[in-house]
Every structure is written in structure tokens, then in C-alpha cells.
């Protein structure tokens, strides 16, 4: 299904969350976050506690691995085929939405990486050139590019599509920053279309993806003061899987967020992290010192996520036109 056809079906969607409900939810999150940080013992002088979508996903997998990557003083391992495929997908969607077309996937990806100064990814692709990984990667991104062209071509400009949009909120008087980068935003309060948030995923569908999308809905709602009408995940070759944003969806996102804040602030205060084995052990920094890690798979099992998220500014009260 083409995304534009799906959007047409959403034209009559209305935000289902009243501003007062959103305001009350924000106050409740803020109070709970303050209480959690007060109880955690995290030193205030260490700066704000940062909880990004990526960190919440990491914490869901393994506390020990999360702490190890946070404490790391060496560069991370070079990206795997699947991790780079995720970046490629984001670039292809942006290119089609803004440029209208793709020509040759490998060439276009390189050009986008050059524009972004992503030397790490370019170097990795060069390493793979001529080898099995290179063949696998080219095959992978050819499929992604075809799926993107098929789905994302022809989105009506009135939806004002924008890609890789940061959304940040500060809580607990600036002691906590929650951040994410939304893959695609469409419509919204400054347009004539309902607000739609789409998370683009290159891997297999997972239950956690739905929660990530809810979190984006919450962050966009807190940023704009108005909840989007719909949040969705899109996987290549499928129709967008959308959910109407209700106060219940936002409350579920808030609950998961606060659980992550509780977990992360406890770890920052020095609590010993627990270890949970899984496919992520393949790219864990402390895999060799870990008693519970299974045999490494070289980091090829699944994509870790969508990469590091840009961090931005805490909010300030007193919004008014400048």
C-alpha cells in the first residue's frame, strides 16, 4: 500500500487527546520523574540524566550491556550489515520524500553518506566491496530501495513531510532529558493535515517497536502541546501499521518511560547492573567478561537500533511568540 493512500484515509482523523489531558499527563510524569531522581541518589552536579529512545531499548535488553556502552572510552564496533541497512532505509525515505526519486541504490546511498559526512559507514562499505558482506549488503539495500520507491512516492506536499525530526523534553526541573529522533512526521498543528508520526523499520516486526512508536507520540505531543492523531510503524513491503493516539496510548508510553528512568537512574547511582543474555550479546562490549553471554555471533543477528540520537535542549516555561 502506498503511504499516500493510507494518508488519504487519515484525512478526517482528529486529535483524540484534549490539551487539558495532555497537560495533566505532563504534570504527572514530571512529578514522578522528580520523585524517582530524588530517591535514586544520582548527583545533581553530574548534569541531566539523559534517557533516549535508544537507551530505553538497550535497557530492555540488558542492563550490563547498557552500562558498558555508556562507560566505554573506545569507539564502538563498526556497524554491521543490518545496522547500516537501517541507516540506508532512513536515507532512502528522506530522498524520495524530498527529491522524489531514487536512481541506483548503492550510488544514492553513498552520495547521501558523503553529504552527511558519515565516514564510518563509507569506510565500512568500502571494506565490504567485492566480498560476501558487500554482496549481501547490496542485495539488502536494493530491496529496501525498491520498497521505499513503491511505498513513499507521491506523498501529497500538503502533508509537509519532514524526516529525522528531533523531539526533546526536559522534566524534573531540567534534571531529566528525554529525547528521540522521529523518522517521518507528516501534517500537524501548523499544517492543514492531522499530525502523523511514522517510525521506519528495516528489520522484522517486534513488539518493542510499537512501544517505541508510542514514545515518539508522547515526545511529539509534549513538544507541540498537541498530540498527533496517529502513530505508525512502517516496514518495507507492508502497509503502515497505525494506531490512533489516545490518552491511553500516551499513558502507556509514559509508564514505560518512567520505568526506564527508574532503572537508569538506579544504575547511574551505582547499583549493580543485571545481565540478560540474548542475540545482543554478539555486539556487547563486555561479552568476553560476561558469565551469562552465549557464544558470539559476530553482531549480525539483528540491528541494534537506529543509532545514536541527537540530544537537544531542555525546555523553558513561558512559551509565547517572539
Amino acid at each position, binding site marked *: 500500500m502506498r503511504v499516500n493512500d493510507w494518508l488519504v484515509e487519515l484525512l478526517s482523523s482528529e486529535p483524540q487527546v484534549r490539551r487539558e489531558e495532555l497537560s495533566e499527563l505532563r504534570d504527572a510524569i514530571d512529578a514522578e520523574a522528580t520523585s524517582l531522581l530524588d530517591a535514586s541518589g544520582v548527583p545533581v552536579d553530574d*548534569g*541531566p540524566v*539523559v534517557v*533516549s529512545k535508544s*537507551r530505553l531499548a538497550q535497557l530492555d535488553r540488558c542492563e550490563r550491556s547498557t552500562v558498558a556502552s*555508556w562507560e*566505554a*572510552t*573506545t*569507539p*564502538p564496533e563498526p556497524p554491521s550489515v543490518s545496522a547500516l541497512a537501517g541507516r540506508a532505509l532512513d*536515507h532512502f525515505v*528522506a*530522498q524520495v*520524500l*524530498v*527529491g522524489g526519486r531514487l*536512481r541506483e541504490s548503492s*550510488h544514492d*546511498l553513498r*552520495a*547521501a553518506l*558523503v*553529504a*552527511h*559526512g558519515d565516514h*564510518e559507514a563509507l569506510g565500512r562499505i568500502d571494506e565490504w566491496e567485492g566480498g560476501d558482506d558487500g554482496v549481501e549488503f547490496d542485495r539488502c539495500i536494493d530491496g529496501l530501495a525498491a520498497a521505499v520507491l513503491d511505498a513513499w512516492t507521491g506523498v501529497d*506536499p500538503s502533508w*509537509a*513531510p*519532514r*524526516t*529525522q*525530526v*528531533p*523531539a*526533546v523534553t526536559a522534566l524534573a526541573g*531540567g534534571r531529566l*532529558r528525554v*529525547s528521540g529522533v522521529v523518522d517521518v512526521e507528516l501534517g*500537524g*498543528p*501548523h*499544517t492543514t493535515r492531522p499530525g502523523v508520526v511514522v517510525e521506519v523499520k528495516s528489520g522484522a516486526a517486534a513488539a518493542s517497536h510499537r512501544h517505541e512508536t508510542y514514545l515518539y507520540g508522547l515526545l511529539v505531543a509534549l*513538544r*507541540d502541546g498537541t498530540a498527533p492523531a496517529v502513530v505508525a510503524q512502517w516496514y518495507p513491503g507492508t502497509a503502515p501499521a497505525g494506531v490512533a493516539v489516545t490518552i491511553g496510548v500516551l499513558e502507556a508510553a509514559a509508564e514505560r518511560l518512567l520505568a526506564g528512568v527508574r532503572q537508569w537512574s538506579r544504575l547511574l547511582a551505582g547499583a549493580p547492573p543485571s545481565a540478560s543474555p540474548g542475540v545482543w550479546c554478539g555486539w556487547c562490549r563486555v561479552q568476553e567478561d560476561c558469565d551469562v553471554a552465549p557464544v558470539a555471533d559476530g553482531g549480525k543477528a539483528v540491528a541494534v537500533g537506529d543509532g*545514536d*540520537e*541527537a*540530544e*537537544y*535542549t*531542555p*525546555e*523553558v516555561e*513561558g*512559551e*509565547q*511568540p*517572539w
Partner: protein
Amino acid sequence: MVSSAATRVAARLEAGLDEVLGDAHRRGPGGPGRSADLRRDRLVIRSHDLLEPCPRRASRPADDYEDRVVTTRRRVGLLVLRRLWGEAPPVPPRGWRVDPGALGPTVRAVFDTPDVWPLQLWEWTRSLDQAGRAALAAGVVTWCDGVIRLVGTARDVSWCDPSLPIRRDVPGRAVGLAATLDATRRTMEGERLLVVTGAASPTARRVLAGQAVLVRTAVARRDRVARVTLAMPPSGQLEHHVVDDALLDLAVDRVVEHAALRVRPDDAPPRPSRSCVHCHLLDECDAGSEHLGCRPGVVAGPAAGRPVDDQDRRHQGTST
């Protein structure tokens, strides 16, 4: 701000620089006479230089600028906003607004208008192929949309020309002050400035606001600035700073402190933190290496000088 305040601040800046620089970076007798010498001798202090928390790193700023989407989208975005606003009717009808859906076509139109671009930026853009320009265009659309969403579409906004950097030389000194400034508005009580930023801490934002006014008013001695607004699209917030003595004194003091570090880098103490992992000086900094629990040089790999972890980005000053 009235002109007497500008005069007072200019005097405070001059006295401060006299104290920390002495005859260094002075123009006129004893200083560089030829323009080539002046360029070489000039000390340029940018807004984001003032936000660096480690004195040692501040004393020797990294010279690793590279044109890429994240470092150019703001300047290209200003070209787009200037064009969008330029296309507005001279007397807009009631309810006139910029259509966010017009951003994509306007970006494409700007890409086809070479004469409005800063030369170096235009040459870099031309070096990209179609897909590379699409990547840049996508970043520009997102930046512009965030700004419009936040600051609205008032007709009387004057977006800054990225070909004309906001930089002024301090009178009598080979010292240039550069500020980030995105738009201005003239009002009855004076000029209003707009700075689009991602600065994390309230203090950093105040320094950015102060530097913008300092460069705009006290050094240029031109306009009366009534207010500075910082726009932060990622959080959807606007923050207003009234221009008063405290704001300007803060800016002057930061400039003087920074100038002192730059002329005596060997005296600048390190302030180790988790940011050390990305520092371009880590190879030669015992304190930073000790803080990270490694020998000097061990960490200096591809990550040195580049932020990779969100916790370390909180000190980054401006969003481009």
C-alpha cells in the same frame, strides 16, 4: 539598550581585553599593519567557543570543521526562509501564513539560484550529486519546518543572510567577535533578535543571547536591541532574554576569560569529564586520560573529537 549602556559595555570590554591581552592582538602602532598580518594575528571568538567547559580545550579549539548536512542546513535553511518571506505579498491579507508544504519546492528553487549562496557553501553543494543534494534538502526542510512551527510566520521578520556572518572586530584590537543570529525584527521598543539553538544548559543559552547582543550592539554600536529570543525547535520552546546590564556583563566577562585562555594556552587547566573521550587533545592530556582510566593516546581513535554518546552532547552549544 540605550547608547550609554553600549558605551559602558564597550569600555568594560576594552578594559578587560587590555588586562588579559596587553599588547597582543592590538591594531595600530605596535600591532600588525598589513591586512595579511592582521588576518594571521586576528583572534576570532565565536559564540560556541564560550560554551566549552574545559579551559584547556577552550584554549586550543579543534580545527575540524567539515561541510556536511548537520553543519550547513542552518545556512541553507536561512536562504530558504528568506525566499519564502520574500515571496510574501507586500501587504499580506489577514491570516496570511507560510505554507509548510511549500518548503520542498522552495528548497529546490534555492538550489537553482546560485547568486544568493555563500560561495564556499555553493561549491560544496555543487560537489554533491543529486542524491547528496536530496539528503541536504531533507535536512534543510526539517530545520526550516522546526523554525516555522515555533516562531510563526510574522511578515516583519528579517531572516539573516548567511553570506554576511555576524562578526565584528573590537575597536583597536585584532580581535573578532562572532555570534549566531538567525533573524531580527524591528519593534517600537527596539530591535528583537532571534537565535535558533540546541544549547542544553540555561547558562549556555544566556551566554549565546549575550554574545548576540554584544556583537550586534556594543561592538558595532549600531542598533538598540530590546530582547533576544532563543528558539529551540526540538523541545518546542521559546526563551526570552531581556537585554540588561547583567546579560551584557556576562557576555563581556566570558569573552575576556576566553581571550585569556587563547593567548596563554599553556596556563589553561584541564577539567576532565566524560567528554574527554572525544577531545582532540586527549593524546597529550594526562588528566583526561587518567579520568578515562587509560594511558594517553590509547583512546585517540576515530571517536576522538567527535561526540558519539548523548551524555556528552549536553555541552554542545549551537544547533546548526
